[in-house]
């Protein structure tokens, strides 16, 4: 009994670490953002009111609390700019995730079926692009896609087009950039689940009368769903808030929420509205997270 207590103590402290991390680097900053989102913009330093000043006692703080309002959120809900940015973010994220899944699944599947000694090499090839800075790779795409860029040169040389095609500043370029950048995040979790799968399950399926196609849809695919969920979330969540890729590769016609946020924050200097937009984005991400959690638990517990 006493020995158990001795060993349990450090373990219990260690268990606090992730919570401490969450509080320090997520909850506290989120509290700041939430507070700003409920404030009003002002030409001041910092550019919003009220400012909590703990030196002036409780009454001042109480008064400051009274000034907080949901005005910014009402603005978000009523202004079509924000609604359309949110919608575009969701559409872009969903579309990109689907494309990523369609491209990533066959690649991960192929990797998992490679001879054992080739698998680490294939894995390296997936990871290798990370060795170059993300921003540099996106700029490289600009080079490739621009009017007299590599892609147009190749197309013209092959006589596939008669005049240069406009690639840059289109949605096509943006999707290309997103899919290119996020593919590893889709492939790796899928590969992890697919490579762990027991090959005798496929033999059993075949033995019990499934054609290879049936065996895939009845056994491989359902068993890879946790990987599909992980990969999809790993892509969907950052894509929905993506700023750099749409800003550099897409046209200026419509914006994703990340771009709108940036505009509010740096161009309009409207911190409170920008903060409100950020909070709303977070709320937007809760449903897919809950869905994934349910899915995960379903596969773990074998729920009925």
């Amino acid at each position, binding site marked *: 009994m006493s020995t158990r207590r001795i060993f349990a103590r450090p373990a219990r402290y260690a268990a606090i670490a992730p919570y401490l991390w969450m509080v320090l680097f997520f909850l506290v900053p989120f509290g700041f953002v939430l507070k700003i989102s409920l404030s009003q913009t002002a030409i001041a330093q910092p550019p919003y009111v009220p400012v909590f000043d703990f030196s002036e006692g409780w009454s001042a703080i109480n008064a400051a609390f009274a000034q907080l309002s949901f005005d910014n959120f009402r603005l978000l809900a009523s202004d079509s700019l924000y609604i359309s940015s949110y919608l575009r973010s969701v559409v872009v994220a969903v579309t990109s995730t689907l494309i990523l899944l369609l491209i990533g699944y066959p690649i991960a599947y192929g990797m998992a079926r490679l001879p054992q000694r080739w698998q680490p090499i294939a894995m390296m090839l997936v990871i290798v692009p990370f060795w170059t800075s993300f921003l540099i790779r996106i700029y490289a795409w600009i080079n490739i896609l621009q009017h007299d860029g590599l892609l147009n040169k190749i197309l013209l040389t092959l006589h596939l087009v008669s005049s240069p095609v406009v690639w840059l500043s289109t949605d096509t370029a943006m999707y290309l950039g997103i899919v290119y950048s996020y593919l590893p995040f889709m492939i790796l979790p899928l590969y992890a689940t697919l490579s762990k799968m*027991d090959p*005798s*399950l496929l*033999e*059993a*399926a*075949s*033995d*019990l*009368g*499934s*054609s290879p196609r*049936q065996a895939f849809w*009845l*056994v491989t695919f*359902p*068993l890879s769903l946790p990987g599909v969920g992980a990969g999809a979330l790993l892509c969907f969540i950052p894509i929905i808030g993506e700023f750099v890729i749409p800003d550099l590769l897409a046209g200026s016609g419509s914006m994703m929420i990340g771009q709108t946020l940036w505009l509010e924050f740096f161009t309009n200097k409207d911190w409170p509205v920008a903060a409100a937009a950020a909070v709303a984005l977070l709320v937007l991400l809760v449903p897919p997270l809950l869905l994934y959690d349910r899915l995960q638990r379903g*596969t773990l517990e*074998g729920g*009925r």
Partner: protein
Amino acid sequence: MSGQSPEVDTAKINTAVAQATPTAPADDTPLLRVEGVSKKFGDFRAVDRLSLDIKAGEFFALLGPSGCGKTTLLRMLAGFETPDEGRILLGGRDIAPVLPHERPVNMMFQNYALFPHLSVRDNIAFGLKRAGMARAAIDTRVGEMVALVKLDGLEKRRPDQLSGGQKQRVALARSLARRPKVLLLDEPLAALDKKLRESTQLELMELQRRLGMTFIVVTHDQEEAMTMANRIGVMDAGRLEQVASPRDLYEAPASRWVAQFVGDVNLFDGEVSSREHHQLTIATRDGGAIMVAEPHDPVGETVVSVAIRPEKVKLLRRGPELDAGNAQAINQLEGVVTDVSYLGGSTVYKVKLDSGAVVRSSIANTARLDIDTLSAGQRVIAWFAPDDCVVLER
């Protein structure tokens, strides 16, 4: 016997059912014929020009050490491996071009290979659905299977909510559900503990008899093979060393290797020195002249081994009292008891002969109190009858 075309799945299942009924005609044509089949992995010959006939309704065991090719042979029957040469005929038809999912053969996998995302019920129904059976018929069949392997009440569980023994039953039910012509079992009991393994052996035998199906089981456990099978094929290095009933395998092994692999044995190497009155005398290096009964098939070579099972070797402090007529008929070897292992039902004595060789003798403990036990250091005479010896070519 209609609807043989592989496209009509229901018809195929029905024929399989018809053929699997216990009243299957016992004619001479084997259900399964393996003809000169070889399989190589790189330079390694896993199965080497092997031929084998298996009759309908047999419980056949492929026995051998690991790496002997028994699992490869089983996998070729299931269709997971293709033979490099030779043919496999099922009911007279070459099944080489038939893909695994179209063969009227099912397999129970060593690790069970249950689908973790499906319930017990759906695991058992899996093969029936693929065969295009009607929903009601599937429900009936699954019910039968669940009752057959005594899994009632567990239909909704997932494999990870089952014990090892229960998983084994689900795997069995799933492979039996399609009523295959031949059921292949790959080390079906290897993952169970000893007690459960013994009771499951009996259940498998009972099931096989009741369903009249042909079972081919792969095992490395000779006791398991001897208990369950009608016939055993002993494999080594990709070849069948001997195919025989459990009794013949033990009492009349075809080679030194089989004699040593199946059960315990004492071996004396020597040469045939004389042959008279249906008795051979063999001059052995370690045991002197040993008399053996002349085997049915005459021994072709003179360089042979004499094999004698330990339970056929008796021990006495003094030489057995022999009447004159019998005197020639008994082999006697003198030595010292060096080791006594009490095993409950029997005791194994190691006797070091004066020649330096060691003979093992297993003696049944037929009485609870034994006043005349032998102990280490005692001088004894090990004796055995010529009829109990087997002459093996070397």
